[in-house]
């Protein structure tokens, strides 16, 4: 069931929107410049240099041939892993600082993936640091590891907090294992995860009171403290100052809530100086609607239309109690937004032409991006039933304006039609040059996984596949 080049204009009828009937973009926005991987590579190199630099004090301070006994060797390994862990913790926090520069260079999605990988590495490194130091010290003092734990906790300053920090880190790491995370309520998981800032605080002291490379006043200690201050500054800037400046500048409010389908709504927002808002189609904000019941709840939604200087729109599928309250938003409600974030944009394409694959409400960032893609894009829109197709009139209008092919693929995952289309052959048939296109994917996890597999087999390189994820 496909509709290539369906022609229609305007938004759905039957809505009460004051903005209804107008095209989303009176003047087609410019296609943004490609950003290229330069920023990401530079940051990657910087982080690696930092890693080497963090171990360098140990290297310079340890005379060659000095590690003669097992205890000395194990302790040395413990020191190295300690330095690495201290550094990785800072990287980890930096990546979650939402520093605008990082968001622009690397993007929230990529950052979330790095955060996950670095997080696993950090946890293992910290555990290695702890065990190696315990074993090494116990050997040096000729006592059991258990007795050594007692000595460390009793006689060493800041060691209790360091152990607590390790405990928190283990809890956070454990709760982030996918299977466990899915079983936990999001709020609980999120609160647990926020407690990892405590790790930064609690783990700080012991590095300087006992760190063999750090206790001594000198360039190493100063540099390490400076690194901490930089990361905390980045955190403050990205999490507090930049959002404050953004919201004081644009002062967003709810203008209208419009039903798009039985379980989907669009929220229109207005504000001041929206013409100056630098945002790309496909990016998302973290929203707080400042009502009594939900101000504390920060929710990531992508904007479902490119900037037009007059309003912003987010289109939200109502699932469960997380989003039910959004139906009842009163016009005039103040909105606190953090963003824009994300590299799921036309600016991050590698090739000139694109294929977009959307599933259900995953169409929203893709809808916004369509306005900024170069002509010749292709869109595959998967939905279980025709009623799940959102914004179809806008899509059809955009398809005509921007010379985009749109295929609606309706049906269950196991129906022969969708299965055929979502196979490598099916994709190649539909889009013969798929391997030379950037592919943007947004939809339910099952669809995304299946599509990525099919695309890889159809010969699409990994770096040309862009995923929208809103983790954290």
């Amino acid at each position, binding site marked *: 069931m496909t509709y290539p080049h369906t022609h229609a204009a305007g938004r759905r009828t039957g809505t009460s929107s004051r903005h209804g009937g107008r095209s989303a973009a009176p003047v087609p926005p410019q296609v943004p410049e490609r950003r290229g991987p330069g920023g990401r590579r530079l940051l990657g190199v910087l982080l690696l240099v930092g890693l080497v630099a963090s*171990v360098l004090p*140990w*290297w310079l*301070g*340890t*005379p*060659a*041939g*000095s*590690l*003669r*006994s097992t*205890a*000395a*060797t194990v*302790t*040395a*390994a413990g020191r*190295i*892993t300690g330095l*690495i862990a201290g550094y990785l913790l800072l990287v980890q926090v930096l990546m979650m600082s939402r520093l605008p520069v990082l968001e622009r260079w690397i993007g929230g999605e990529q950052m979330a993936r790095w955060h*996950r*990988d*670095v*997080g*696993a*590495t950090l946890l*293992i*490194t910290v555990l*290695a640091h702890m065990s190696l*130091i315990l074993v*090494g*010290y116990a050997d*040096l*003092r000729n006592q059991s590891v258990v007795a050594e734990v007692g000595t460390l906790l009793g006689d060493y*300053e800041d060691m209790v907090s360091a152990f607590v920090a390790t405990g928190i880190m283990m809890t956070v790491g454990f709760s982030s294992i996918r299977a466990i995370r899915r079983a936990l309520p999001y709020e609980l998981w999120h609160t647990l995860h926020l407690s990892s800032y405590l790790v930064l605080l609690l783990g700080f002291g012991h590095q*300087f*009171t*006992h760190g*063999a490379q750090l*206790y*001594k*006043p000198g360039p190493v200690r100063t540099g390490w403290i400076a690194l901490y201050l930089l990361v905390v500054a980045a955190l403050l800037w990205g999490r507090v100052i930049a959002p404050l400046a953004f919201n004081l500048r644009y002062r967003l409010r709810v203008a209208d809530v419009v039903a798009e389908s039985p379980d989907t709504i669009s929220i229109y927002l207005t504000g001041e100086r929206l013409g100056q808002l630098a945002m790309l189609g496909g990016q998302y904000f973290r929203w707080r609607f400042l009502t009594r019941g939900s101000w504390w709840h920060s929710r990531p939604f992508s904007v479902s239309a490119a900037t037009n200087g007059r309003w912003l729109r987010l289109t939200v599928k109502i699932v469960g109690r997380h989003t039910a309250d959004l139906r009842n938003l009163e016009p005039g409600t103040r909105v606190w937004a953090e963003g824009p974030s994300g590299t799921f944009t036309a600016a991050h394409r590698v090739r000139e032409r694109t294929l977009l694959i959307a599933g259900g409400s995953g169409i929203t960032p893709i809808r916004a991006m369509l306005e900024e893609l170069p002509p010749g894009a292709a869109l595959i829109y998967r939905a279980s039933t025709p009623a799940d197709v959102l914004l179809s009139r806008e899509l059809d209008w955009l398809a005509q304006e921007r010379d985009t092919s749109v295929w609606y693929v309706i049906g269950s995952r196991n129906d022969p039609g969708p299965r055929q289309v979502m196979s490598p052959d099916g994709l190649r048939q539909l889009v013969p040059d798929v391997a030379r296109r950037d592919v943007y994917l947004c939809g339910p996890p099952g669809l995304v996984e299946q599509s990525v597999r099919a695309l890889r087999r159809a010969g699409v390189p990994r770096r040309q596949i862009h995923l929208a994820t809103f983790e954290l």
Partner: protein
Amino acid sequence: MRRAFLAITGLAASTTALVVFKGSPSATPVAQNLPTAQPVNPSGPGTDPSAAPDAPGTDPEAGAPTPSTSAGAPVSPKPGKTTARPSGTKATTKPPSAPRTTKAPQSTTRRVTGNGFDNEYGYVQVQIVVSGTRIIEAVALSLPSGGESDIHSGDVSNRYDGKGGEVVQKQNANLNTVSGATETSNSYKQSLRSAIEQAF
């Protein structure tokens, strides 16, 4: 996750490599026995004992023991050590920049550095100054120090009648003796013992 696994493996491998590299004794000699200027007897430059750290006291080319002519009785460096022999007359095997000695003077001071040992706070290395057959001084070249500074001088100097409060200065003057706390850590003793073994 695959990248995390790679990262962990990589870090483990590099940590092991770093430790192994620093642990290999071939990198640089640990003990450096530097000749020292002779404060008591300027005419006799110090000899370089160049004792091999792994084979103390086994140098077959060692010169004959020279009996000490000083008034003091020879001191046994350690109880139970009976093989101590007066030294200071070994031929230099590899003098880096030291003056080559042709004839061993009867008594010289020389400095012998012990092997370094690690404890949980860092690296400990002891040097002894030997005059003839006597140890006249033992000093720690490298001691882990510092840290745990939770005192503010402002708190201290309130109501204090004495002088000072400045950053501690180094003074080197002509001295008869030095007052200081005794070092008693195991690493210190191990390093001292190795210095003594090399010296005699």
